[in-house]
Structure formats: C-alpha cells, structure tokens
C-alpha cells in the first residue's frame, strides 16, 4: 500500500468527520499559527529596526554622559560624571578629523502655545546645525535652522507637522510666534511627516538652536553629541579620535575608564536582539505547549478512530493488509490530520501577521522559514502522537476485529 493510497484514505476520513476533525485540530492550528505569527513578527521587527536604526544612523555614533546603561548602579555612578557641554561639542567639531558632521543636542518635553491653542508633551529639542542629517528631517515649508541661528541664540524654531496641524489648522505657520515654555519663538520651518515608529509619533516636536536651549531652559544639563563619520570605514577611526580628544580634555590617565559614553547603532541593535530573543523564546515555548496539547488531542481522536473502525481494520487484514500496512495507514492519517491543522495554522498565522502589519504600525512580514517550521512541527506532532494509536491498530487480532460490533 503506497503513500498516495494512505493519504487518500486519511483525507476521506477527515472529510467524513469535518467538525470533529476541525475541533481536534484547534490546538495544532493555534500552536502553528502562533509560531508563524511570532516568527514573522519578530523577523519583521528585526528588519524594521535594523533599517530604521542603521540606515538613519548609519556611520553615526553618539556621545553622552551615560552611554548605554542597563542597570541602576551604573546609572547612579554615571550621574557623578561631568556634564558634556557646548564647548566639548565645539572641540570635537574642530578636532575629529574623520567626522563629517558634529551635532550638539539637548531636549525636554514642554507645552507649546499659539494664541489660545496649546499642545502638551511636545518634544523640544535644542540642536546645532546638521541636525537634519542626523535626524533625517526634510523641510516641507520654510527653512532649517542654521549655524547663525545657533551662534546668535536666535529665538526661532522648526516644528514637526503634527504640532503645526494642532496649532495652525488650515493656516500658514511660517513667521508666526509660538511660546515654548517661557520663550517666544518664531516659526521658520516645518518638516515633512515621518509617521510613526513602533506606535510613537515622530512628528510631534519642536527644534530650537541648541545654544538658545542651553541659555533659556532651566534644566539644561548635559548635552548629547552626535557625530557622523565621513563614511562607514572611517567610523571606528572617528570614534577613537573623539574618545582620545574627550579623554585629553578631561585629563583621564591611561588605564582609567572613560567618564562619558559612546553608543553606536550596533550597540542598540545588540540590545534589541537580546530583548526580542527573550520574547522569541518565551512565545515559542507557549506555542510548543499548544502543540503538545494539540498532539494529545490528536492522539485521543486517533484512538477513538481506531476503535470506531475496528471492523474496517479487520476487513483490511482479512484482505491481506499486513500489520505494517495498517500502521502506516493510521500514521499517515494522524500526520495528514495534524498537517491539515498546520496548514490552517499557517494560513491563520500569515493572515494574522498581515493584519497586524496592515492595521498597526508594527511591521510583520511573511517568513518562509517560519512556514517550513510550521509544516515540519505539525508533521512531527502527527507522527509522534499518532504512533501509539497506529501501533494499537496494527496489533489488532483480525478475528476479534471482524467480530467487533
């Protein structure tokens, strides 16, 4: 008896009990669907994050007071470090020879007023010239902030599109004066919308010159310095130059650690991978439990099926089926069953990730390895949990089986 015959019999049996088969398969469907959804989702996220993080910030590194800190003790220690200042930024701008752009920035969150209207929780960023490259801002209307704006501590700002939509519905914001905290600034430009990233708006901000920010904002504190190297190859050189320069300015002796932090996009990517790796493991674990439960249900239904079809087994044996033929038949049937569940689960999982991708900003792609994994897992579930019922069927005594009512 070949595989095609067995599969035909199996599909017939599934068709004959559609509802029962479907209910039996729910566990497998859910298990496989979650695996597909999780894998597709995490892969989509990875792609998305690496695009956003690495492309926008390619060959960019960031210097700040803290660096990449993931625990409280490090944070407490880092608080005692000296602040980074505009002077540091200026020194870096002059001293890092492999730097294309050096941008000093600072930020907080404030309320912005225009006449009677106001908007809360706007990210106010003090930035020096070149910020548009680091932040990937394109101007929609008006102009970007310039070196002169910064040097003269001008009270000017560039607004994100979400801010102008709220404050200037249907009106031209250029030349208008808005109040950012205590200061009144003239709007000189509006950027193009960037949309959302991981559910966060990227368009709800106001940029003012960093020197203006440092002059007026009470909680000015330490600034952040972003440096874009000349090209990818120059990145490590630029980092080394910046590091040596800052250590020199701060008189840090050889062998002593840095009292400032340098972060690259790779640092973030690494952290992100660790994070999603954890999520991945947990969700795969949950999905595996669903698959095991699904497998047990399949085993149960196969045992029922073997009992119900005892007579059929007897007839087949009388007509010349060897124990091995019966074993294969029921094994194929269990596998066909679980594989159908797997395929439904794949459809559901793919549908789910496409739906999530369509209605939310979270990215989700269809992952071919995930689909293959789903097929493999559901087949294995069928073979594993189908073995015992199939073995029982193959060992039935033909006389007893023929007599079974």
């Amino acid at each position, binding site marked *: *008896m070949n595989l095609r*015959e067995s599969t035909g019999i199996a599909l017939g049996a599934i068709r004959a009990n559609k509802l029962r088969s479907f209910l039996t398969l729910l566990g497998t469907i859910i298990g496989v669907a979650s695996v597909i959804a999780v894998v597709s989702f995490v892969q989509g996220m990875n792609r998305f994050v690496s695009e956003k993080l690495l492309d926008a910030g390619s060959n960019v590194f960031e210097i700040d007071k803290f660096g990449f800190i993931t625990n409280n003790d490090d944070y407490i220690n880092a608080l005692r470090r000296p602040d980074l200042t505009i002077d540091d930024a200026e020194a870096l701008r002059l001293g890092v020879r492999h730097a294309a752009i050096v941008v000093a920035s600072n930020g907080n969150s404030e309320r912005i007023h225009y006449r009677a209207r106001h908007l809360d929780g706007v990210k106010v960023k003090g930035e020096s010239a070149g910020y548009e490259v680091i932040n990937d801002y394109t101007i929609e209307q008006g102009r970007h902030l310039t070196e002169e704006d910064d040097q003269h501590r001008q009270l000017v700002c560039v607004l994100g599109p979400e801010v102008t939509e709220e404050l200037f519905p249907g009106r031209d914001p250029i030349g208008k004066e808005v109040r950012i905290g205590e200061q009144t600034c003239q709007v000189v430009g509006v950027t193009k919308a960037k949309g959302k990233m991981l559910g966060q708006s990227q368009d709800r901000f106001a940029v003012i010159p960093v020197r203006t920010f440092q002059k007026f904002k009470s909680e000015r504190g330490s600034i952040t310095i972003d440096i874009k190297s000349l090209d990818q190859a120059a990145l490590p050189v630029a980092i080394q130059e910046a590091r040596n320069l800052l250590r020199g300015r701060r008189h840090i002796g050889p062998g002593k650690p840095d009292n400032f932090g340098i972060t690259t996009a790779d640092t973030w990517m690494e952290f992100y991978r660790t994070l999603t790796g954890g999520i991945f493991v947990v969700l795969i674990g949950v999905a595996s439990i669903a698959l095991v439960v699904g497998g047990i249900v399949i085993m149960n239904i196969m045992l029922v099926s073997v009992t119900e079809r005892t007579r059929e087994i007897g*007839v087949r044996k*009388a*007509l*010349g089926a*060897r124990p091995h033929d019966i074993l294969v038949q029921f094994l194929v049937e269990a596998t066909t069953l679980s594989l159908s569940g797997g395929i439904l689960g794949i459809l559901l999982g793919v549908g789910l990730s496409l739906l999530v991708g369509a209605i939310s900003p979270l990215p989700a792609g269809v992952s071919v390895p995930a689909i293959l994994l789903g097929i493999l897992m559901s087949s294995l579930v069928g073979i594993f949990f189908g073995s015992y019922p199939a073995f029982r069927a193959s060992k039935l005594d*033909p*006389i007893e089986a023929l007599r079974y009512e």
Partner: protein
Amino acid sequence: MLIRIHDLHRVYEVGSEQVHALNGVDLGVGANEYVAIMGPSGSGKTTLMNLIGCLDTASSGSYRLDDVEIGRMSDDDLARIRNQKIGFVFQTFNLLARADALHNVELPLVYAGIKHEERRKRAREALELVGLADRMKHRPNELSGGQRQRVAIARALVNRPSIILADEPTGNLDSTTGEEIMVAFEHIWRQGNTVIVVTHELDVAAHANRVVRMRDGKIESDTPNPQRRAAGAPA
C-alpha cells in the same frame, strides 16, 4: 490436494479453562470442489473456517494450503497468504462504507501491490462477472443487500485466490436474494474456483457437492452430495 488438514487442534484459554474448539480435525479439499461445512453453533465450524482462512493459526496439527505449511507462519506471511490465496465472503458483507463498489473490490489488489490501472481493470472485470457493471460507482449504502454481497464476492474473486471462503453468505438476506447469491457462487464454481461455504442452512448446503458436518470440534460426517441442486435450476 489444495487443502490438507491433519489432526488439527485449536485450544482457547478461557479464564483458567481450556476450550478445545477443534479437537483433531482431518480434512482434504481438492481443487474445484464445492464444500459446505455445517454444524450447530459451538461445533467448531467457525474456528475451522478461521484456520482455513489463515486468520488464525492452530495450536497443533498441520494445515497445508497449496502444499505450503501454514502452521507457524508470521503475521506478515499470513497476511500475504490471505491476500493471494483466500477470498472471503462474510455474512455482514464487510464492505468499506466510504468507498464505492469499485474501490471496495480493488482493496485486495492494493495490498497485493498492483498498479492502479491494472487494479481498476481487474476490479471492473470482477464486478462485471457478478452482474454489477452498472453499479461500480455506488457506495454500499446505495446498494441492496444482494448487490452488496455480490460486491463482496467480486472482491473475494478479484485477486484470483485458490479458495473462496464464505461464512453464512446468505445469513443477512431474504430467501430470494439468498438464492441469487447462491447462483453467483454456482457460477464462479463452474468457472473452476474452489468454494467452501460455512452455513447452518440446509438450503445453502444443498448446493454444494460435498457436505462436511461438525460436532464438538470434530468432523462428524463428510459425505458427497450426489443430489446437489444447481442454483438457479428448478428444485
């Protein structure tokens, strides 16, 4: 001799007791015989049929089918013998409910490992032989009792077995339909097949050319039936 049975015993353990279902049976059946095995229930006729049909193996004694000793064969070998040498016809037909007539008849050929086209062809021929050429695509529940049993006979014949083994083939049929089935057996016997019918109905046994009576696990009498009544002929 097609079948040579010598001093065959079959002992069942029922609880702590031993039941001698067959207690020293000797029987020989030649090719193209038409034998009826009769006896009251508990006489051992079903046990004998199971042994002849290679569904069961004896506790002791010898059973040679086509000069091959069946005695201590493995399950796989028994399955092969059943597939190639035995054609079963059951009282309750035992057709697969979900399969059509053609597919039911094909089944022994599936286990014989015969290719699809060849299977189709031979199953068709067997169904034509029992007069069901126009019912090939019908499922058992779309067929009458007599038609179902004729499908079963076609299934028994399809792999050209040495013996057609029928267990109360008319037991679930009314007398008219039963007669129709006996006509079918008459026909296949006349074509050179060996037919063994297990029955307790005299009417059925009357068609055989030899009647074996059993009692208490032994053969009580084994007589030719010179007055055999050809099925389909007037009584």
